[in-house]
C-alpha cells in the first residue's frame, strides 16, 4: 500500500528513533575523527549495524548525514582498490 512520499517521510520522521547527544555531536562536528575511524572500518568490510547500531539508526532518520558518511566510505574503498590513483 503506497503513501504520498512527503507524508510518509513526515510520519517516519515523527516516529523515528531519537539520537543521543553523543551521536549528534559526532554528526555536527565536521572534523569528527570517530566517524573517520568508523568509515575506515566500514570501508574495510565491517557492518555499521554491528559497530554502532545507534549511528545507523541516526542515519535512517537523517539521510544527509548518511550521504556524507557513505561518500567517505566510497572514497576509502576506491583508494584501497587503486581507483583513485593517477
Amino acid at each position: 500500500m503506497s503513501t504520498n512520499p512527503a507524508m510518509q517521510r513526515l510520519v517516519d520522521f515523527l516516529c523515528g528513533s531519537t539520537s543521543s547527544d553523543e551521536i549528534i555531536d559526532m554528526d555536527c562536528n565536521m572534523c569528527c575523527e570517530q566517524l573517520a575511524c568508523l568509515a575506515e572500518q566500514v570501508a574495510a568490510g565491517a557492518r555499521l549495524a554491528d559497530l554502532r547500531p545507534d549511528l545507523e539508526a541516526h542515519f535512517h532518520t537523517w539521510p544527509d548525514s548518511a550521504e556524507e558518511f557513505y561518500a567517505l566510505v566510497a572514497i576509502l574503498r576506491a583508494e584501497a582498490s587503486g581507483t583513485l590513483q593517477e
Partner: protein
Amino acid sequence: MSERTNEQWVADLHGAPGVQAQALEDLRMRLQRSILYYLSHERSDLASRSSQELSQMADDLAQDATLRVMENLSTFRGDSRFTTWANKIAVRLAISELRRVRHKDFSLDDMTADGDLQIENTTVSALNGTTPPDPERATERAEVLQKIDQALSEVLTPRQYQALVAIAMRDIPMDVVAEQMGSNRNALYKLLHDARRKLRLYLESQDLPIDYMLELFH
C-alpha cells in the same frame, strides 16, 4: 607522491616554508583526486557535466578543503589515518556546497503554516499516493493526516514548522535550512528534536500513538 605517516603529515604541514608548501600541495592534490572521484563516480546528478567542469569543481573544492584542514589541524588526534580525516572534511564540504547550489532558489519563507500541506483541500487518493488503499483505511489515514496537519500549525512555533516541513517533507538538506535560519546543524537538531517531541506528545493526547501511525502508514 610520497606516503607519510600521520605524524609526518602533521609535522610537514607545520614545517619550514619549503616543507610545508610541498605538504600542502600533496594534500591538495590528494583531496582533489578524492573529490573528483566522488563527483564523477558517485553523483549521477552530475553525469551531464564534462570532465573538465568536474575537474574544475574538484580543484576549487580541494582548495577550500585544504584550508579547512589547516584551520582544524590542531584538533587531529591521530585515531584515524590523517588522510581519512582530511577526506572526511573535504567530502562534507563538497556535499554541502553541492546542496547549497542545488537548492539556491529555496526559501524558508515559502514554508508557512497557511496552506503549506493543504491536507483539507487535497483528495484522499492524492494524499495516499498512486495506489489507493481500501476506502476504510484511506479515510482513516486522511483523518490522521488532518490531525497531524492541525498539530503542525497549533503545536509548533513558526520556526519549528518551517524547519520540520522543509527537512522532513520537502527533503531540503539541513545545511541549507540552517544557513537560511542563520543557525547551524547542531542548533537545528535541537529545534527539530523539540518539535518532534511536542508533536508526538500532542498526537498521543489525540489517541494517536506512534505504533498505530507506523502501522497505518506502512
